[in-house]
């Protein structure tokens, strides 16, 4: 009767991932690219008028910040809606009864969003490289490293958003995820504050120190203009090497795996009403 089922979980996860990517494309999420390109073009024209021989430097800084901010907002928006939209639109009643495990469904949704974000960041990076090239500059490998770190940050952020949305509403999930991202981006400052003179040895200091140790360190993925090992690094001068990128990626992916694992456990026993 039934056709024989091929392969393991991978084809089923791929089917869900492909559908998630298709949804993002058909819902015109990638139109953000056009907006980014137009914004960058307008901005480079203004910069050309205002700055003296620093157009490329400013364009790189603002372009990288733009890629990071735009993609973080999109990752947050898409991430918290990944599961809730399925429930709100009742498509979950169609897909969960199909022969796949709930964790496969969750992982497929995750990979679909990550694939969308990789395409988005990659395309924005190409647009930025074109503008930098047209302005007489070179995009350079330092920028590529910075952009790889942005992708890893998005993978972690999506996993955090999925964790929250596996048990709470999209509004609460968005608030929790955004708060965690803001604190995570300022993790170093939080750690310094917790171990500073005022709080050292106090209960609040210990709590803040614990929080700074366990929250995801989003600052590790956006470090141009910041300090690494006591030295200021920038995409224009001395920047981190591939070793740092690998280390930060390992940290980000491990953290994301833990978040996804917990999300899978919570989602596995949830009543889909």
């Amino acid at each position, binding site marked *: 009767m039934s056709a024989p089922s091929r392969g393991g979980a991978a084809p089923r996860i791929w089917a869900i991932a492909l559908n998630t990517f298709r949804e993002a494309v058909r819902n015109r999420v990638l139109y953000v690219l056009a907006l980014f390109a137009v914004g960058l073009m307008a901005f480079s024209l203004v910069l050309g008028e205002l700055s003296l021989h620093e157009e490329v430097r400013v364009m790189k800084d603002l372009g990288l910040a733009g890629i990071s901010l735009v993609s973080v907002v999109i990752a947050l928006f898409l991430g918290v809606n990944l599961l809730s939209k399925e429930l709100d639109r009742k498509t979950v009643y169609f897909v969960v009864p199909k022969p796949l*495990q709930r964790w496969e469904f969750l992982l497929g949704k995750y990979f679909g969003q990550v694939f969308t974000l990789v395409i988005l960041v990659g395309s924005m990076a190409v647009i930025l490289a074109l503008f930098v090239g047209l302005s007489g500059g070179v995009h350079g490998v330092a920028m590529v490293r910075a952009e790889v770190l942005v992708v890893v940050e998005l993978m972690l952020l999506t996993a955090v958003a999925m964790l929250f949305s596996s048990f709470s509403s999209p509004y609460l999930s968005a608030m929790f995820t955004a708060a965690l991202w803001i604190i995570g981006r300022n993790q170093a400052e939080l750690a310094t504050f917790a171990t500073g003179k005022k709080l050292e040895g106090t209960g609040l200091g210990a709590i803040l120190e614990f929080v700074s140790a366990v929250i995801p360190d989003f600052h590790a993925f956006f470090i141009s203009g910041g300090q690494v090992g006591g030295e200021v690094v920038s995409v224009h001068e001395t920047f981190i090497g591939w070793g740092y990128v690998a280390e930060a990626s390992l940290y980000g992916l491990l953290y994301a795996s833990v978040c996804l694992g917990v999300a899978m456990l919570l989602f596995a026993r949830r009543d889909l009403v």
Partner: protein
Amino acid sequence: MAVLHVSELRKTFTRGLLRRRTEALRGISLEVEPGEIFGFLGPNGAGKTTTIKILMGLIFPTSGTAHLLGAPAGDRAAKARVGYLPENPYFYDYLSVPELLDMVGRLHGQAKAPRRKRSVELIERVGLGHAGNRPLRSFSKGMMQRVGLAQALMGEPELVVLDEPMSGLDPVGRKEVRDLVFELRDRGTTVFFCTHILADATALCDRVAILVKGKLRGVGSLDELLDPRLRSVDLVWQAPSDTVEGLLRFEGQHREAAAGRLLTVDDLDRADAFVRELMAAKGRLLQLQPHRESLESLFVSEAARDEEPADDEAPKEQEASA
């Protein structure tokens, strides 16, 4: 071995801050045998969709067990052999029918060529050949119901679970679905379906279950559930005006009817007696209709029965299986 086996299934929902408890299912047990068309009937809020959601692994029972094709409900191996049409189906509306069926085929682990072949066959079979590559968001409710049937059959299931399959379909569509259900049964597929349309249940089902307020009120074939005894006989008659008054004195309930006069009597003996009088009065019998208990009357009486059956009261399921 039963294709579907449910034992003492209970489900209690807790809602809101006050954790209000609602008992949706209160210990139901039933079995569906291979190759039968089984109707799951009940008024709104009876617990039909809750039962189906448990069977499909969407929610978990508070207690009791549910098995499909020998595997626990929600098990991937069982789901691979089951096709499911949800009530008011919602699909990814940005996809076209071929894209949706391709996704379902992938989830069933079908290779590219067979899933494409199956998809083309099913699109024709449910009458959606004209839809082409239009996105589902442009489909009417009836068309969505056909999409739902196609996706439920994509995995060549051994058991098909249909939640209100006739919903939104016009008379032609309903007939097509009935034909499809019979075709599935003829090919050995078991069909379990929920419906509010009792005419469909009467026409289609080998057996039915009636669920009211989370409890089963009866399981069995229509012959087993329905009282075969005659309830009443309706006679529609005409007679010359000078004899009408005498005939209206005959014992029974007399009413005006569109084509004459209507008499309702308790049994066929009384009907025979009246016909003899009518013939003697040179009248004409236009229609004679004996009434037995219908599924509708059983359904209405069970739905209206407010009091709970006592613990020792044997449900009709046991009577039927005895």
